[in-house]
Every structure is written in C-alpha cells, then in structure tokens.
C-alpha cells in the first residue's frame, strides 16, 4: 500500500509502522469501537455518570471552601486569578488523566487477563493496532464527555477567563490520548491487580505536586525539575494557559511532550499486543 492511500487522520505511529502494516493493522478500528459502544449499553450509566462528579466535588470543596481562605493566586505567567479559576483547569487535566488511566489500566487489564477479549479479537482479521487504537478511542470518548461537562460547569461559575478556553477541549483529549496509550502499554506487562494499585499509588503524588493546587515554586529547584519531567505538569500548564488566556511559547513544548508520549505509547502497545498474542 502506498503512503498516498493512508487515511488523512493517520497518526505518526501508523506511518512509522508502515512496512509491517498489513499484519498489524487491518484498517478496521471501527469494529473495535463498535463493540465497545455496544458493551457500554450493558454497563451502569450511573457509574459512568458518576465519574463526571468527582472533579466537580473538588472544585466545590477547594475552589469555594479553601478558596475563601486563599483569595487570589498568581499563575506561572504572572496573572492574578481567583483560586477557583486557578484549580479548575488543573482539575480538568487531572480528570482527563484519571479517566484515561482508569480505562487503560483496570479495564484493559481485565480484558487482557480475564475476559480474554483481545485474544478473541486477534483471531479475526483485526490487527493489534486496530485493537489498540479502538480501545484508546473509546477511552478518549469518555474523557471528552467528562471534559465537556466540566467545562460547562466552569463556564457557569465564570471560571473560563478567555475565549481560548475553547481550545482546552482538544488539549484535554491530547492529554487523555497520551495517558491512555502509555497506560495500555504498561498494563500489558502487569500480572496482578496489586501491581495496578501501584499505578494508582504513583499517580497520587503526581496529582498533588503538578501545580494542580499551588505553584511548584514552593519546592526546591531539584524537585521542580522532577515535576516538570512528568506528564501531568505539562497538561495542567497547557490547559491553564488556555482557560486563563495566557498564551505562551511554552505551550508548544507541552503539546510536543504529549505528541511524543502518544507516539511512544501506541508503538509500544502495538508491539506488546503482537508479542502477547501473535507469537
């Protein structure tokens, strides 16, 4: 197949994997997505809906309650904003991360090891890349719905300070894509549920330290470097810049970080799925 016939939305990973494409990718990600949507019909909608409330509760508690103690805070670009407007974009990025990580760890682990779903899929003409992209797409869909809901809440509370807030939506999807693709790759190495609990445990400090609730400048420089090397900080800064309207060239770095993360995650996941099932 020539490069010219690639679908317009082809990702970097697809292009990179092109020589072995036929075995990896049947161009039928739609079938995986269709199955996923059918499966959600039988899940408890309340549970799915409940995921939306978590960041809202945080916003009410910290934004309103704690915010009353704090007043305004300064962003990394020097803007003075109300505390709620400071944490709301961070919560948006965090919920994208949490949703993507949950879907790509717990859910994928269950499908890999218990329901043997992928094994069944890969005995058909579907390739591992179809499966990986399909699953990631489903995780993103859920993330997009949460994000949209949360942004409506932000608008109602007057926490979107500039029109660029609209761009936060694609930014959030980028973040979720990054975490979902990498999360799936990591999950493919896991053997027990306890190991997945460690993922949750490791995400806790990232959640608390990545400029979510306060500037990282309170920490010594060495720790700041570590935080800046981790993905969530880039996500928080990117979304905050967009909702507060403080655009900066650093945003290209943040976006670039996620593009690399997505590429690594997709390549990694695909090759793992192939190693696991297409021996």
């Amino acid at each position, binding site marked *: 197949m020539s490069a010219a016939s690639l679908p317009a939305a082809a990702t970097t990973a697809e292009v990179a994997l092109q020589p072995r494409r036929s075995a990896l990718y049947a161009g039928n990600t739609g079938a995986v997505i269709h199955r996923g949507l059918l499966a959600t019909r039988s*899940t*408890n909608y*309340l*549970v799915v809906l*409940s*995921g939306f*409330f*978590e960041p809202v*509760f*945080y916003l*009410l*508690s*910290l934004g*309103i*309650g*704690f915010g*009353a*103690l*704090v007043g305004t*805070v300064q962003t990394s670009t020097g803007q003075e904003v109300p*505390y709620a407007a400071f944490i709301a974009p961070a919560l948006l990025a965090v919920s994208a991360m949490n949703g993507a990580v949950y879907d790509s760890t717990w859910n994928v682990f269950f499908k890999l090891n218990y329901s043997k779903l992928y094994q069944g899929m890969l005995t058909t003409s579907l390739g591992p890349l179809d499966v990986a992209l399909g699953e990631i797409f489903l995780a993103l869909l859920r993330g997009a719905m949460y994000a949209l809901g949360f942004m409506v809440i932000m608008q109602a509370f007057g926490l979107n300070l500039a029109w660029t807030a609209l761009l936060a939506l694609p930014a959030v999807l980028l973040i979720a894509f990054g975490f979902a693709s990498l999360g799936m790759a990591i999950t493919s190495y896991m053997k027990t549920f*306890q190991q997945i*609990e*460690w993922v949750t*445990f490791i995400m*806790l*400090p990232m959640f*608390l*330290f990545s400029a979510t*609730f*306060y500037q990282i400048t*309170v*920490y010594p420089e060495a720790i700041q470097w570590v935080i800046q090397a981790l993905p969530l900080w880039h996500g928080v800064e990117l979304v905050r810049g967009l909702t507060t309207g403080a655009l900066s060239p650093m945003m290209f770095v943040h976006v670039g970080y996620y593009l690399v993360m997505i590429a690594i995650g997709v390549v990694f996941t695909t090759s793992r799925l192939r190693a696991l099932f297409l021996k």
Partner: protein
Amino acid sequence: MTALDQTQRPDAARAIAAGAAPRRWGSWYIAEHRIRAMKGYAGDAIFQSLGNPLIYLFALGVGLASLVPQGVGDVTYLQFVAPALMATAAMTVTANETSYPVMMGFKWNPIFFGMNASPITGAQIVNGMMIHIALRVIVTVSIYFGVIVLFGAVPSSWGWLAIGAATLTGMAIGVVIATYTSTITEDRGQMAMLQRFGITPLFLFSGTFFPLEQLPIFLQPIGWVSPLWHGTELGRVATYGLDEPVWLTVTHVGYLATLFVVGLWATRKHFTKRLNK
C-alpha cells in the same frame, strides 16, 4: 427445644464441650486468619501507610500551606490540616477493608460460608474482621501521628489522643460501609459509586482542608452528619486544643460511638441473615 434434643447423650456432650472454645474465642480466630492473610500484601500495606502521610503532608502541609500564610485561627495551616489527614487515613483503611473484601467474602472468594460451616457464627466473623481492621488502623494512624509530630504539627502534649479519635472515626465509617456492602449480591459498580458519592465528598466537605464555616450554608450539613468531620474536630481538640464548647466535644464522641455500635449491630445482623440461607 424439641423432644429430639438429648443433650445428655455422650456424643452430644462431646459436641457441646468441643463447641465451648469457638463460642468464646471465635472472633479472635477470625482476626488471626485475616492477619495471616495479610502476609500476601503486608509489604505494600506498610509502604503505603508510610508513603501516604509523607506525600500528603508534603503536598498540603508545605504546598497548600504556602497559600495560607496567615494560618487558620491560632494555628498554622499544617497544624490545622494534620489531624484531618490522620482521620482521613483511618477512613481510607477501613473503607478499603470493608468494601471489596466484604463483597468478595460472600461472592468471588466465598470464605464467609466456609467459616460459617465451622463452629464460627456470622456475628463472630464480623467481630473478627473488625478486630483485624482496628489493629490495622491503629498501626496506620500511629505511624501517621509519628510523622506529623516530626513535621512539628502537634503542639499539645495531649496530641496522642488523636490516635484514638482517628481510630474511632475510621471504625465508625467502616461498620457503616460494611452494613451496606454486606447486602450487595450483584456487582453493578456500587463500589465506584460508594467511593465517588460517599468517601470522596466526605473527604472534601468535612472541614478537612478548611473550616466547615467557609462553605456555603447549604453544603455545611454534609459536615454535620459526616463522621469524618466529628472525628477531625475531635482530633483537633487533641492535637492543638481547638476551642470548642465541651458539649460539642462530647457530641463528637457520642456520635461516632453511636454510629459504631449501630453499624456493628446492623452488619452482624446482615451477615447472620445472609449466611443462613
């Protein structure tokens, strides 16, 4: 008693003699079992009971505190938040131990039925689990207390009483959760719901990060019924002598103790009923 009851028969007398020890000590046998089962995850449990306070204190005591340089009332923000974190840690342990493990014991790994086939009764299973959970909470909370003392967050010499306050809080919440989870027969994501609409709001709206009065009045009742708020305030009285009327302190203790007693009673009832099919 029926006419068939012949307690004088030799084999009946032998049964009654053999039943004496389990009737008396059964709860402790269950506690022993649960502790033995911890071997599988003891390392993780210890690491997490040490790791969690360090992470939270670092994040909140250092990070959030930088936003509230004036402190809360007469104390620093760290001193204000530390007893809340201790009570929350207790809640986290008990919520974990009384959610999936209870459902699992009836359903996926139905050990409760196995226990009940021996002389152990449903009430003893509940007691034994609670003894084990209480021990876990006391250890976790004591470690937490040690860490916050090192952070300089306990000005009062009565501060160690906060260990008791946090333990009571955790146990009160634990039995309430067990009362519910012991009735679940089908997994329809109730655990996620419990976490999101139970544990998380308790954590966020119980005067943990800020005094309850900071919240709009319509959200404050969450705090009043929240065992975590009562437990946190009790802990604050212990660690820095929070100024509150004596009747309120008594109310905290009374509320938590009542929840514990009622929750334990209800959980035991549910277990007994569910095991007697």
